[in-house]
């Protein structure tokens, strides 16, 4: 019966695991998750991006995707408004800006690898997982293809293989997790010629970003996009123009997606616990009302029957009384008559 030390430690480990966000245990607590301590990320500095599409090329190569219709050195595609796809985990778009000095700016789009990802929170088979390296992993072997992750992603990142008839997958940037495990940089970061992309520990990247803003306040908007958006993302962005002008949402807030649904989900046990009480209570009341109605009916019938009986008795009595009186009178008259008769013959006899 004794608990071995080893087993106890296992349990303790399990208890700690329950505290890792993304698991439901944390949803209602006050603990704030700031990401895995060693978690990596990428800092994208829009002011350094020249729109060369090398990162798209690097991504294409490390993922063994087919060559695109327009080659990567064709920069005319920058005029289109492109998004991520099944065979393009990252794209760069060019945006016209209101800034006087520079009329265009670039933004690279890919999975932001949220600290508490919406896709992972809403997936009903846990196909998404935030790893300690910083990457949000996708596991196609359990995916049912419901595409709720795509609905929930605030950045519209995941894509779906709609033309795959039998085993369609959700596809998105992996942060080159396999390469990270080998000690290599993500494909896009490695190929970037201008240091617009830096890979590193997220905490250190935040410091670098802050320093840049502080040292060049005239060049940067005083905001690190991704530091807090939707609970924070592993990808961080610096820009010289308002982020809205780069097509980035500024209405996301700082709460991770999980928190929007945790309230509704926390109502589940309450409903399960209280509804039977409420329903049985109502059932009981309706039954009782039925019963009371029946009882009242019975009572009313009883009372009216009693009343009727009483009345009948009274009637009988009065009738009897009447009958009595009538009879008495009859008897009296009869007696009188008899007496009278008895007297009269005597008289007659006496006479005769």
């Amino acid at each position, binding site marked *: 019966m004794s608990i071995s030390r080893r087993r106890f430690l296992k349990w303790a480990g399990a208890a700690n695991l329950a505290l890792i966000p993304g*698991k*439901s245990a944390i*949803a209602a607590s006050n603990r704030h998750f700031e990401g895995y301590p060693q978690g990596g990320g990428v800092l994208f500095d829009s002011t350094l991006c020249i729109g060369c599409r090398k990162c798209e090329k690097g991504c294409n190569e490390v993922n063994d995707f087919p060559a695109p219709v327009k080659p990567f050195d064709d920069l005319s595609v920058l005029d289109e408004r492109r*998004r*991520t*796809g099944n065979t393009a985990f990252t794209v760069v778009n060019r945006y016209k800006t209101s800034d006087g000095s520079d009329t265009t700016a670039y933004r690279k789009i890919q999975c932001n690898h949220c600290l508490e990802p*919406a896709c*992972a*929170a*809403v*997936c*009903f*088979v*846990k*196909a998404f997982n935030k790893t300690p390296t910083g990457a949000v992993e996708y596991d196609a072997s*359990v*995916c*049912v*293809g*419901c*595409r*709720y992750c*795509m*609905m*929930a992603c*605030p950045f*519209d990142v*995941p*894509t*779906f*293989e*709609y*033309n*795959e*008839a*039998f*085993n*369609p997958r959700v596809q998105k940037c992996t942060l080159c997790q396999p390469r990270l495990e080998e000690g290599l940089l993500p494909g896009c970061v490695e190929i970037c010629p201008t240091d617009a992309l830096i890979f590193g520990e997220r905490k250190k990247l935040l410091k670098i970003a802050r320093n840049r803003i502080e040292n060049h306040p005239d060049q940067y908007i005083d905001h690190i996009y991704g530091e807090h958006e939707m609970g924070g993302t592993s990808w961080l962005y610096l820009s010289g123009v308002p982020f809205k002008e780069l097509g980035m*949402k500024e*209405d*996301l*807030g700082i709460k991770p*997606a*999980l928190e*929007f*649904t945790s*309230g*509704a*989900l926390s*109502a*589940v046990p309450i*409903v*399960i616990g209280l*509804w*039977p009480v409420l*329903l049985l209570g109502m*059932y009981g009341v*309706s*039954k009782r*009302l039925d019963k009371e109605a029946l009882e009242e009916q019975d009572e009313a019938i009883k009372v009216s029957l009693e009343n009727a009986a009483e009345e009948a008795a009274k009637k009988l009595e009065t009738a009897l009384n009447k009958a009595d009186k009538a009879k008495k009178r009859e008897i009296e008259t009869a007696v009188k008559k008899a007496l009278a008769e008895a007297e009269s013959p005597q008289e007659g006899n006496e006479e005769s």
Partner: protein
Amino acid sequence: MVDETKALRKKSLLTPVNIISGIILVAGLYATIIRFTQGLGAVTALSDYNPWGIWIWFKLVAITLAGAGYTTCAAVYVFGMKRYHSAVRPAVLIGLLGYTLFAVSLVYDLGRPYRLPYPFFVSQGTTSVLFEIGLCVAFYLIVLYLEFSPAGLEWLGFRKIRNIAVKATMALTMFGIILSTLHQSSLGALYLSAPSKLHPLWYSGYLPIYFFITSIYGGLAMVIFVFWLSERYLPDNIGHAYQEEKTGVVLGFAKAISMVLVGYFFIRIFGISTANSWHHLFSSWGVLFLIEMLVGILLPAILFAIGAREKNITLIRWTAVLTILGIIYNKFFISTYAFNWQLSPVDRYFPSGLEVILTLFMITVGVVAFRVITSLMPVFFEHKDYPSSH
């Protein structure tokens, strides 16, 4: 009854309704083959921006109106309104068909439908609202089939099993109400995780409650609507007890819907108020929102009240249609039109022809199934071996 049905079918085989249904069914089967051999991309206009389309709209509406089952059972068995008893079986059948179509439609919508059991048996994503919906709908489907089983068993003549099934009525009703409360509201909670994507006039922290309330009045309105159609088009399937109680059901339900609608109208306004989205009312979205609020919610509330007061059955029936249209309108905005509202027009979703056909296919399958089942099984009439027992 079977002979009569056959006679009826022979008689009405070439009516316009039947011809249109036939065309839809054939086109639907064709689209089904393409869907399962060439993938979702071949039949839908879904995209990476718009992963859910009108099939989800259909599913939301089907589940909401299928609330007919649990609301009617609650009225009769829990609240003790025994005068509505003849409405129970048709209402449960509406629920059963609604949920069955939901499940069938899900098979079309999922990328890998054969993995439908995965969330239950392989990898449980307990933080997902969809996980809870899946679990509740699966259980509730079982409950609905058990609730309806006495009708089937009477038809088949299995008296003993039927009597056992009847004894479980109260327990099943309780389960049904709990499960419905949970998943009806969770369908609204599905949209909570994307506050930036759904228009603020339709997004609210109260969405789960909105969806739950909608299923209450939507279910009751559906009962009135389906009963009307059945009386008109399936008079041969309707029996004596139903005829006697139907006026009471329509009047009683009208009163109930009217009151629920008034409450719903106010909590919708409270939603706007707590989120302070008033300024959105002064936009084209605001007009579309006000149409829903005034024509889809407030107007039916008033008309139902008038209808119930003046015992105007015709008015009540048309108001039920208006109420259902209001719900369809609401779900349309939440599932498609007001979703991704900030997206540039080129990236917005517009359904493909085959998507529309498959949606009509689902509805037609439901109508045909309802017709066949009510003609065979004691739904609107009482089985001669079990008089006044259901």
